[in-house]
């Protein structure tokens, strides 16, 4: 007899009799959940990445200080790619009598490849969206530049030898890395007009950009080639290098989606493990008979594993098909909701679906089924003999390791995967311990209860081992759901709060020491919150540990050359603000140190290779100033408050020329705020960051919508675990329900017994899950999301209660057959 054929026949028989249906549907739903999440996250991530790529004006940009030519230009001409050139340099610009140093950008006709310009005809006028740059002979000027230069549409602007007519004012450019402190006017002209300015000559400091966009594979080929062939002074920009606040949002989105997918994987595994256990139990007698009739262990393994594999393949195929259908609908919805084109799904999630489905099935489904081969033949006579299967534990451990690898791969972040795995292991142990303690309590209580209630609680209290496992598994499922709720609502909300409506939307810079009181009074008159003023001392890097720092210190890195040369702002402060966190060393906090100390932003320090104890010298208007690094800080840049790479201990910068900066929130009802400020204090510069904020907020909104979609899949997977848990004990429940009916129990009494049991299990699981989830959420918040953590007990309590209700509703739904089945039929079916 061919064991595979036997396995197939057994599968058909088991399916017809309903024996493997639960396992099958558990696996199908698991694969649907995983693959849908995979499809949706794949598409959403690609859509978000594509959206974010608009910020580059394309999918990638190659930047250099010489025209980009040769093999790299040829690479940009590859099929499937579009390309565009831009060129940037600084130049004096004149409008009427106003002369300022500005930033000129020359764009070719194809630019931008992604994104668009938002332009107006006058400040505050209606906005237009334009795909393309200025026509020849015309210039577009930034709104802030127009303010600075007093320019309006129709004015002439002189740049080098050429004159242009200002045709529009730019509200938003597709690719501006916003620099809060750069108030220089920005002007865009056509690339074809550059020669007429006579400004680009040998030795001119010009930045050239070659922007590409197109099919993902073609872009990937281009970036791989360009990165491998970077010339001196060149640099490749992808979304990774684009604006830090968007990058940070995307990182979070990726982690969020990874986390949600991860939860689905875990829930699916629990469901499959439960269903497989039940399947195995139902096959004990049959296997004993087969052993009795002379079947070898190998035959039993082949038949049962073969059945499992057949089942797995069919379930995976069905699951992937359903997921594929689902993602069409979800993709359409996402596309409409986010108002962006969602790229088609790739094949990868389908492959992932099969891989994860089969690994989960084999890791969690195979051990109990494999244990069947050790069924003693004697069981045909003595039904109390169960198989013992030490090696099944090995299989389970191997399976768990496989799952860990899958999680790692799926989460995309070892930190996240490890945190989750350790969290789950510890949580399971903690849940098991708490469950065990609570069960002891329940045992005490049940003696005082009567009838149905006693029976319900007896189910929880009697089989301590099983109950501990059930409550722990259910608790873990609930915990995952709660954790997701915590993460979604709590963490994301708190992150969004940091971008809340009252986030600062105007930066005011260049406030002089003697203007501080007047500016404060002005703000009060405007009805604004009293602003916090931050001191700023402009400085240039001079030396580190006595070694001079110049452009030549970084021969291959234009960005670092720029950093080494440019002026930046030192600030000083007594205390550390709440959007800063010391990760190395110690902040002085009010205790003014004797010699100057520096607190440096971690990534900034890393880029220079600085560490604690390094002595950094600055040039401040020709005078040298040296301080010792005593702490490294992590900064939440998305707080949109002024932050500084280098903070100096108080007192050390006395005597150096300082100006002050502040950030305020100006309501939309005050459109004349900027004009009023400039009228009152002509030397102040007001920077409007509403636009930037709007963009960041809209990105955050889109991210949370995507996460919500993923969350619903995980929620469905969680409910599936509840169903699997209940169906695992369905036989016992049917039998017990039947006996109670025979003894005269009414439907109401049975319902009450069931309700008390599920309520107890739900409550116990919900309670421990809520506590564990809030603790784990804290770990995830602080370690992964870099957010400060405050426990949210109300949410935990509500989550626990909802968990209990869910257990009750699911439990009563799943056990309704027990009420409907005639007791004689139930007893006859189950006692044989």
């Amino acid at each position, binding site marked *: 007899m061919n064991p595979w054929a036997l396995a197939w026949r057994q599968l058909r028989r088991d399916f017809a009799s309903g024996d493997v249906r639960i396992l099958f549907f558990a696996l199908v739903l698991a694969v649907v959940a995983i693959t849908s999440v995979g499809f949706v996250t794949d598409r959403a991530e690609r859509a978000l990445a594509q959206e974010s790529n608009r910020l580059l004006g394309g999918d990638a940009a190659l930047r250099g200080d010489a025209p980009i030519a040769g093999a790299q230009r040829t690479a940009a001409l590859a099929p499937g790619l579009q390309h565009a050139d831009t060129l940037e340099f600084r130049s004096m610009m004149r409008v009427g009598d106003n002369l300022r140093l500005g930033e000129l950008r020359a764009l070719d006709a194809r630019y931008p490849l992604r994104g668009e310009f938002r332009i107006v005809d006058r400040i505050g006028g209606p906005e237009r969206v334009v795909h393309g740059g200025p026509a020849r002979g015309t210039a577009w000027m930034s709104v802030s530049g127009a303010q600075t230069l007093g320019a309006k549409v129709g004015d002439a602007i002189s740049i080098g030898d050429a004159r242009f007519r200002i045709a529009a004012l730019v509200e938003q450019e597709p690719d501006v890395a916003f620099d809060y402190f750069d108030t220089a006017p920005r002007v865009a002209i056509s690339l074809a007009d550059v020669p007429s300015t006579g400004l680009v000559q040998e030795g001119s400091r010009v930045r050239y950009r070659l922007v590409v966009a197109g099919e993902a594979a073609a872009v990937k080929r281009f970036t791989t080639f360009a990165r491998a062939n970077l010339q001196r002074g060149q640099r490749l920009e992808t979304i990774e290098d684009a604006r830090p606040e968007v990058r940070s949002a995307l990182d979070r989105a990726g982690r969020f989606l990874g986390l949600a997918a991860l939860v689905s994987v875990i829930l699916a595994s629990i469901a499959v493990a439960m269903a497989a256990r039940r399947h195995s139990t139902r096959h004990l007698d049959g296997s004993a008979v087969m052993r009795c009739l002379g079947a070898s262990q190998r035959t039993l393994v082949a038949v049962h594993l073969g059945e499992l594999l057949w089942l797995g393949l069919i379930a995976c195929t069905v699951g992937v098909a359903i997921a594929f259908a689902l993602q069409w609908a979800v993709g359409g919805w996402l596309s409409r909701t986010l108002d962006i084109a969602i790229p088609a799904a790739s094949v990868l999630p389908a492959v992932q679906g099969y891989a994860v489905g089969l690994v989960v099935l084999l890791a969690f489904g195979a051990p109990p089924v494999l244990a069947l081969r050790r069924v003693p033949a004697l069981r045909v006579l003595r039904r109390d003999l169960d198989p013992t299967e030490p090696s099944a534990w090995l299989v389970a451990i191997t399976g768990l390791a496989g799952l860990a690898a899958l999680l790692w791969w799926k989460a995309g972040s070892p930190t996240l995967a490890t945190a989750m795995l350790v969290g789950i292991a510890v949580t399971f142990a903690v849940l098991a311990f708490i469950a065990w303690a609570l069960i002891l309590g329940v045992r005490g209580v049940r003696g005082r209860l*009567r*009838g*149905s209630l*006693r*029976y319900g609680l*007896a*189910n929880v*209290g*009697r*089989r301590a081992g099983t109950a501990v496992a059930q409550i722990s598994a259910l608790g873990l499922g609930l915990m995952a759901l709660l954790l997701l709720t915590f993460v979604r609502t709590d963490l994301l909300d708190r992150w969004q709060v940091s971008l809340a409506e009252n986030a600062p939307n105007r930066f005011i810079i260049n406030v002089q020491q003697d203007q501080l009181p007047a500016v404060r009074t002005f703000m009060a008159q405007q009805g604004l919150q009293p602003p916090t003023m931050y001191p700023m001392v402009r400085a240039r890097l001079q030396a580190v540990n006595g070694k001079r720092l110049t452009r030549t210190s970084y021969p291959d890195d234009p960005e670092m050359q720029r950093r080494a040369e440019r002026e930046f702002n030192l600030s000083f402060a007594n205390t550390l603000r709440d959007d800063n966190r010391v990760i190395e060393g110690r902040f002085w906090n009010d205790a003014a140190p004797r010699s100057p100390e520096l607190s440096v932003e971690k990534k900034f320090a890393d880029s220079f290779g600085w560490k604690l104890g390094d002595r950094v010298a600055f040039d401040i208007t020709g005078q040298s100033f040296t301080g010792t690094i005593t702490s490294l800080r992590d900064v939440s840049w998305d707080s949109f408050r002024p932050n500084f790479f280098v903070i100096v201990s108080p007192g050390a910068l006395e005597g150096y020329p300082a100006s002050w900066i502040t950030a305020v929130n100006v309501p939309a009802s005050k459109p004349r705020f900027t004009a009023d400020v400039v009228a009152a204090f002509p030397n102040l510069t007001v920077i409007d960051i509403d636009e930037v904020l709007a963009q960041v907020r809209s990105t955050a909104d889109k991210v949370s919508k995507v996460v919500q979609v993923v969350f619903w899949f995980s929620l469905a997977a969680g409910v599936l675990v509840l169903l699997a848990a209940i169906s695992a004990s369905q036989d*016992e429940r049917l*039998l*017990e329900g*039947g*006996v*109670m*009916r*025979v*003894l*005269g*129990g*009414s*439907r*109401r*009494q049975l319902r009450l017994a069931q309700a008390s049991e599920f309520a107890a299990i739900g409550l116990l699981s919900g309670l421990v899950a809520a506590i564990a989830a809030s603790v784990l959420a804290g770990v995830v918040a602080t370690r992964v999301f870099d957010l400060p953590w405050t426990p949210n007990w109300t949410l935990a309590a509500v989550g626990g209660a909802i968990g209990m209700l869910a257990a009750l509703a699911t439990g009563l739904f799943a056990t309704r057959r027990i009420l409907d089945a*005639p*007791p*004689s*039929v139930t*007893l*006859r079916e189950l*006692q044989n």
Partner: protein
Amino acid sequence: MADSDGPRAERPLRVPLALEVQGLGKRVALPEGALTILEDVDFAVERGDAIAIVGASGSGKSTLLSLLAGLDTPTTGTVLLDGAPLSTLDEDGRAKVRGEKVGFVFQSFQLLPTLTALENVMLPLELRGDADADGPARRILEKVGLGQRLRHYPKQLSGGEQQRVALARAFVTQPSLLFADEPTGNLDTHTGQAIIDLLFALNADAGTTLVLVTHDEHLAARCRHAIRLDSGRRVDA
């Protein structure tokens, strides 16, 4: 027995009937057509009587028992339990009747594994809402010789002990009718004998009407009457 046989004539005519069965039949629909499990069975049982339902495996005796006890509904015919027709009641109504008037003993004991011996015996009393379930349950467990095993779970008891608990559970409600379905089927001869002795002793004590399903002629002989079934039909009449 209250039909054609002799003892009826010797009894006063007004002995009330514990059980009256008229034209009882059960058919189930199968893909290959309807299958008749039980057909046109009539009999009556007087209060305090003991009757055996005897037949080979598959003869329909367990089905008959289910119908008598209201565990299942007949396709044709009626069952009057203490004069009240079971067929007019819904499942909850039948459950109530069972709780008040009927005791059960099964071949496979059917104790709830999650409850102790004492709790198993208390359960039917609690289900019908008795204020004191503990006292009667303890007393009857003492009576069946399990006074020292009150806190034991079914798994901790031997087969014979489990069946004693089942007997205690059956008699604790002082039922007017006791249905026993192959009560010794899962026990060795010696233990089975002891259980049967106990069953009859309790039955005599309580004056319960006993309906015993068995394929064991020796056991059937201990009842005053016997109904024989073959292929769903009564063959003794």
